[in-house]
């Protein structure tokens, strides 16, 4: 499931995929700002055909948190 997710993140934040991992946060990734984070969430929702709850989105501090939500929503690994 990481591959496709990392691809989306890399495209939205315009950074190389290799520097993204589950510990990536807005603190250690300069390109991650509060606005393009909304864009990212929107793209993930469309790509995986899911809807995050508002509180879920507020709890995302690092990329690994997105994967936790995936598990909750039953998104299968690819």
């Amino acid at each position, binding site marked *: 499931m990481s591959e496709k997710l990392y691809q989306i993140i890399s*495209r*939205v934040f*315009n950074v190389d995929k290799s520097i993204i991992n589950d510990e990536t946060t807005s603190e250690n990734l300069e390109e991650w700002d*509060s*606005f*393009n984070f*909304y*864009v*990212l*969430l*929107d*793209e993930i929702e*469309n790509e995986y055909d899911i809807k*995050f709850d*508002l509180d879920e*989105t*507020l709890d995302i501090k690092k990329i690994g948190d997105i994967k936790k939500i995936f598990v909750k929503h039953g998104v299968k690994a690819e």
Partner: protein
Amino acid sequence: MKNEENLAYFLNEAKTIKPRELGKKLRVAFLASSTINGFEETMRVKCFQKGIDCITYVADYNQYNQEILNEDSELYKFKPDITFLILDVRHILGDLFFSWHTVPHDEKPKFIETKISEIKKLCDTFEKNSNSKLIVTSLEIPSYSSYGINEPREIRGIKEIVHEINNELFMTFGKVYSSPKIFIYDFNGFVMKFGEKNIFNYKQFFSGDIKISTEYIPKFINELMGYVYAITGTIKKCIVLDLDNTLWGGVIGEDGFDNIKLGDNPIGRSFVEFQKRLLALNQRGIILAVNSKNNLDDAMEVIQKHPNMILREDDFACVKINWDDKVTNLQKIAEELNIGLDSMVFFDDDPINQEYVRESLPEVLVVDLPKDSSQYSQIITEMKEFDVLGITEEDTKRSDMYLGQKKRKELENKVGDFNEFLKQMNIEVSVQKADSFSIPRISQLILKTNQFNLTTKRYQHEEVSKFSSSDEKIVECVKVNDKFGDSGIAGTYIIEKKNNEEWIIDTFLLSCRIIGRGIEEIMMNGIVEEAKLSGIKRIKGEFIPTGKNKPAENFYEKLGFKKENEFWVFNTDDTIKKPEHIKVIKNE
């Protein structure tokens, strides 16, 4: 969705583009009552792609009142060319958005009046303090009403009053006052097109006061680009069309007259609808041309006789049906219609032709037409390149004018001798001072004319107005007609009265359709005569080369102007010979 249409794409591109020296510069300001991140980025990238260097200013969150009302604000210091004021219904109505049902009926009119006058006051103040165009978004008519199902039974329900506010804005700045500077953008139309549930994303709204969801920002900015094209004169004037599988389904040379798809079946209906959209654009002043590989007779039979064909021979200003390649034909069309390749749009269903034209003639806008003809109508409707700020009488008559042009060409070929042809044309020219009727067309000419244009200075409507009422300037235009029809206002000039001895030609231009018939001599002759009457000794003019105005390059010399440094100078003791085949009507 293609990546190039994603907001992420625009946000990232915006970081890499740098202003080039492209010639076209634009300063755009955004004012809003909600978060508008992504707006200026998308607009800068879209402008960049169209060869416009765009610099932007985004006012602080919800500061639009202060920015507009304070004449020393950063907004005015920025000196924008275009300012977008993005209002939204929740902000304007405040808590009444939820509790409109608590307002007594007799207090409603006063509330509406107050809201309208607040917006009007902003517009009026802005108009006084800035030369910028101001585009104000109309309000979205909300799907929600606190009256529930009783909304339609209520006097002045919430939807009705938002509609009322919008209408009042349309009336004030469009229909009644016809402001040259203030335009109301039909934002509600945008919401109708894409749907409130798509545009308004509650999560993004609660998280960051985003009122146009990130997914729809590029689509919204695309709508606003219509104003950018119109104001910068980046508009397209001519649509060049392939025939097989572009104007009708199938291939005429193979399927034959009776079997092409046009009309009573699903595929055929999509082509009829597409043709109807094209005809509407044509009636609004966009000229149409055909560029098709076919046997002329086969294809013309469809155009002339097919019962479901919407576009007919007379709707096309130029028809190239032959076996030449598409690029050669496009060049010939540009030449015959006397318009630049950069004002042409090319529709062809064949991806190979699309690519070929894109590579050979990068100036031409080649539409990425998909295989599915049901999308054609939508694609042409989404294109903002045909918008002008005001449709002039000349626009609505343009198609007839080009038809006249075709007939003139026929006469010219028949007569053979050019001077004899000119004599037979019965050309009449009337020179008139600019007035409120002619100024919209004059400024349109000033913004659009590239070829026969001595200085290519671009002035907006209100600048032309100002010049025309100034004692230091002369703004005049020429109306032209001949036995084939009325060409309307086709030329204009602005003279600066420098002092008691000298006039300067600030602007002098002629629509490309009528170059070379002696009308330019009549215009200059008129200037000289007028100068003599005012005791002026010298007329000075400049030729500013742009790469596009070569047809005007030798004009001064031909008329007897003498070169002095960068100026061309005419001594008013001399005269300019008046072409005898033209009848001049003086209007005072």
